[in-house]
């Protein structure tokens, strides 16, 4: 086997292991978020605090859009469209920051405080843990963007980009369950 073929074979094995490792990590993370969801249903029951519905819908839309731009960045790299790849990464960072601002500035500065009993604790616990993951995702994307700018990734070998994209979609996936649990399910109480 030639050196190049051997290196390619090693990359394939590493890629498989990396994917499996990442998904196992997601499995462990899902226990954390499931625990938070169970806490919400245990403590809030069929009620929820009065939250800004429009803000909830907007930040959900923004996060959804950021998932699309992240997917587009990954697709662009596969298609050797480097400019779109880098631009879409920056767009994803901007949308992620907008989502954070929507949650932190508008929701956290509302009428509910972390010390407001079960409502405050669960709301800040869930949104805070999710926001922490969004921040780590933004940092991850910026690292990938910098690497991409230096030409480290190719259309054939870009595990870093794939992992970053899957991580960002995971953050979106968690919000898919958190949004209805926080904003929609149950009777709103003052």
């Amino acid at each position: 086997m030639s050196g190049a073929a051997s290196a390619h074979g090693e990359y394939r094995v590493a890629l498989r292991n990396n994917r499996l490792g990442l998904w196992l990590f997601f499995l462990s993370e899902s226990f954390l978020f499931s625990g938070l969801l169970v806490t919400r249903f245990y403590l809030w029951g069929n009620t929820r605090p009065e939250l800004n519905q429009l803000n909830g819908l907007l930040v959900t839309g923004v996060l959804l859009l950021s998932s699309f731009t992240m997917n587009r960045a990954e697709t662009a790299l596969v298609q050797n469209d480097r400019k779109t790849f880098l631009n879409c990464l920056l767009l994803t960072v901007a949308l992620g920051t907008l989502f954070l601002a929507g949650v932190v500035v508008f929701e956290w500065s509302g009428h509910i405080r972390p010390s407001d009993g079960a409502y405050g604790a669960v709301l800040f616990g869930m949104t805070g843990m999710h926001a922490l993951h969004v921040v780590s995702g933004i940092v991850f994307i910026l690292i990938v963007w910098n690497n991409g700018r230096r030409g480290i990734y190719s259309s054939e070998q870009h595990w870093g980009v794939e992992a970053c994209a899957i991580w960002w979609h995971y953050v979106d996936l968690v919000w898919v369950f958190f949004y209805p649990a926080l904003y929609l399910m149950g009777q709103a109480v003052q």
Partner: protein
Amino acid sequence: MTTSTMYALAAAVVLILTVGGGVGLAVLFRLTNQLVVGDGRLPRVVPERVVVPTEPMALLRWRREQDEERMAVARRVAAYRSGATVLVVLAALTAFEYVMNLVGISVFGLFVIALVKAAIIVHYFMHVATVFAAGDGH
């Protein structure tokens, strides 16, 4: 100003607004389409000048390059279109979720919608199938 003149003016204004609005919307849709499902770039106002070679072998090579470029663009557009379709479906489901909550859907119903959205994200965006796939590419 007579009543008939006013009616004529109003009709003209409505006509101009309708046609202008229609043309404006068409341009907007065209640009959005180019950005969302196109190749990610705005269309060129002045088309690029194409120089077709006259020498037979060069012409053959040029045609082959043109075909390859067309196929690459088609592949890229198809890949981008798939992502845009998923976005539209997810946005529609989110809107549906919001509206159904206003109507008074049960917690179970909202959970089912969230599960459908999650399945779409895991399959189309997170490519879960690649973990178990026999192929080893990205």
